[in-house]
């Protein structure tokens, strides 16, 4: 059984390494500041004991006040998992660092988020629309976007 690590316990360890990087932590997830995301991602991947080498899924949720990015991490070696989150409050020009350099599996998923949610990933090698065509106006998965039938 994959053991879901407690966000609170990991927050304690991260707090020593990256002071002020944790926004909020509970039993099921860990919310960090976006400027620390890349450093924390690298730390979680390379630190023995964590070894989060497998990024299962990346997705974003539009909570109207902010966007929340959700990273599901797994360690194949230890068979444990963690849900890492980042929030983005800027609706006009939301930007989050890209984790493609750490886990390449994020490549298409970040492009998908950019396409449908309109969040820019800084440092992504090929950030362009993936399922919609170039020149499409708007980002359909945002809550304010209304389809043609509404």
């Amino acid at each position, binding site marked *: 059984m994959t053991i879901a690590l407690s966000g609170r316990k990991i927050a304690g360890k991260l707090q020593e390494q990256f002071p002020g990087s944790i926004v909020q932590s509970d039993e099921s997830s860990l919310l960090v500041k976006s400027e620390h995301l890349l450093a924390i991602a690298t730390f979680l991947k390379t630190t023995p004991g964590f070894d989060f080498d497998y990024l299962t899924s990346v997705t974003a949720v539009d909570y109207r006040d902010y966007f929340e990015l959700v990273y599901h991490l797994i360690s194949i070696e230890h068979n444990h998992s963690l849900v890492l989150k980042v929030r983005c409050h800027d609706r006009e020009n939301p930007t989050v660092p890209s984790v493609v350099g750490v886990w390449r599996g994020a490549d298409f998923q970040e492009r998908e988020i950019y396409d*449908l949610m309109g969040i820019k990933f800084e440092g992504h090698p090929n950030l362009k629309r993936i399922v919609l065509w170039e020149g499409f106006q708007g980002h359909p998965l945002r809550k304010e976007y209304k389809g043609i039938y509404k």
Partner: protein
Amino acid sequence: MPIKTEPFAINFGPFHPSTHGVFRMRTTLDGEVIIDLEPVFGYLHRGIEKLAEGRTYTQNIPFTDRLDYLASMSNNLAYVLAVEKLAGVPVPERAEYLRVIMAELQRIASHLIAVGSLLNDCGAFMTPILYMIREREKILDLFEMVSGQRLTYNYMRIGGVSQDIPDEFLPALEKFVERMPSYIDEYDRLLAENEILLARLKGVGILSKGQAINISASGPVLRGSGVEWDIRKVDPYSVYDRFEFDIPTGTLGDSYDRYRVRIEEMRQSLRIIEQAMKQLPSGAVKTDVPWLMLPPRGEAYAHIESPKGELGFYIVSDNSAKPYRFHIRAPSLINLTALRDMSVGWKIADLIAIFGSIDICMGEVDR
């Protein structure tokens, strides 16, 4: 003096028989050798994630049929597991077993098409795939008995399955489980040592263990590279912890290993079905849930080992009748990240075999 060539671009697809749907690969070639490749998606994008936000939890089950339409049962299962996790709905024992039987039958059906079309792509045109469609037909007959459908089953429900199996189902399933191993042996006899198949697949399109993990590959692509990672074993859902089965893995990570993993997985699926038939309890097949269910505020991620890899659903609820966010973690899309790594340096003819060995379904890639 070597002959100087100029790189040139070829657009493979979107309408090409080997692309298994509408998919485009923008390849740059130096002579016959691929020097760059970029997959282009979106020709089958229907916006299912957005559409799902406008429908109730139960209304969304048929949508999941249209993702990986070669494995509708698995999609149903992953989605209902996520909603059950979100709302805390219990599932009767009998329904759990029926789900496992359906999911494993679906795995065999999907792998038959995967292997068949891989051979089709390699040039064994239509003969092997028709052998495999012959057996898949039996599975479709079984699914028709339980759900009335042959492709988009819509069989699972939140809290169980839509209806109990009819009386003639178990005898037919027994007959299938009895006969299927000899058919798999037949494929092996025809294909495993086939010289042309070995020449086309062995050592071609290698994906190393480290790469496979780094690009988040899953399913036979990950296991073909030698990673023993099967969600049925490492994070058992439903009642998978009650069955004995092995995880077949490859060693080299080439196209042949991925093909072998699929053949072996079919045998393991039969083992699971056999055990599930023996243990199948009697009783109800569905928990009563309200027609308009309002799961509590929160989020849930449930994943299963679908035939193509890890299929996950991430659902956020705002305590209304419709999901606030509905995200599909599609194995086919993420496995395609590996395509460029696998095919650069190989000839254009090998690209077809490498692409076939990933086994994708466009309904799931584009959504």
